[in-house]
């Protein structure tokens, strides 16, 4: 009985201490935030055409703001196609030069390969912009409609 009464406060202490310890750990490595700024928008496409959005296309490329400090590993989970709710598809492709890291003023910091895990060094809580392009290939049989997909961004601190 004595041991049970001793366990309860210990459990409470452990549970209470977890968030604090986690925050301390995060601060030592630098917290990171991901903020979507602009979607990858291919716009109006015609059937039977191949349309590429380069990373320099400021109005159509995807833009994500990364803020924080310290090294991070950025992984993009890229969709293979844009789709309609009824299942019609437009295949997407991404090349090794379809992503880049920019300053908030638009200067290129680093070319990124969206097909690989990219190590990025964030400095002193500054915000950098991850931009992503890609290519959509329609066919003559691509039906009229609105096609969508989602790109997931995973950020990890190295070693965690």
């Amino acid at each position: 009985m004595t041991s049970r009464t001793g366990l309860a406060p210990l459990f409470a202490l452990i549970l209470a201490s977890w968030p604090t310890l986690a925050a301390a750990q995060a601060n030592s490595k630098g917290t990171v935030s991901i903020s979507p700024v602009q979607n990858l928008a291919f716009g109006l496409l015609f059937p039977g055409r191949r349309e590429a959005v380069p990373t320099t296309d400021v109005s159509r490329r995807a833009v994500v703001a990364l803020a924080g400090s310290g090294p991070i590993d950025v992984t993009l989970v890229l969709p293979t196609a844009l789709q309609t709710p009824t299942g019609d598809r437009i295949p997407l492709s991404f090349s090794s030069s379809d992503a880049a890291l920019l300053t908030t003023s638009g200067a290129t910091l680093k070319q990124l390969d969206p097909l690989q895990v990219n190590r990025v060094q964030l400095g002193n809580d500054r915000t950098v912009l991850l931009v992503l392009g890609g290519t959509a290939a329609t066919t003559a049989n691509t039906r009229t409609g609105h096609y969508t997909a989602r790109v997931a961004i995973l950020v990890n601190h190295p070693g965690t």
Partner: protein
Amino acid sequence: MNRSLRLLAALSFVALPSIAGAQAITGSIAASADIATVFSFGTSTGLSFGTVTPGSGATGSGSIALSRNVGVIYSLPDGANTGRLTGPAGNLQPTYTCGVGATAATIVSSFTSCVPASTTASQLTLGAPSGTLTEYVIFNGSLAAAQTNIAPGTYAGTIRITATPN
């Protein structure tokens, strides 16, 4: 401290750094595209009866291409005056067969009427194709021998076709 308490304490110290170290975060952005509606008339070939010998029959064929990737409703806004020729002797109304085909040579789907009483009624409705296609609206005309024994001159008219995306 009994044995279970010691064990729990040991476990907690082992577990805490791993939980605190899990700093993976995720975000996502959308990608999108809109496929345009293709719907436009292309090149037309005029329907010509040529030089007609008075008192003999004549035929001619004309067409206009339409490219589309959606359904279509065809109508003839001039109604009963569709393709009516006018010239020195007044009006001359050929007899028409009309419709749509994959080529300009053969009608596959016929209009309900080529000279309809209604100027707005649908003469032919076709569904959306599996992809972008080009089809031809075809008018084949004929003049009977009895119609051509008239004053000489040029007789001309217009066949107006309205295509509405559906």
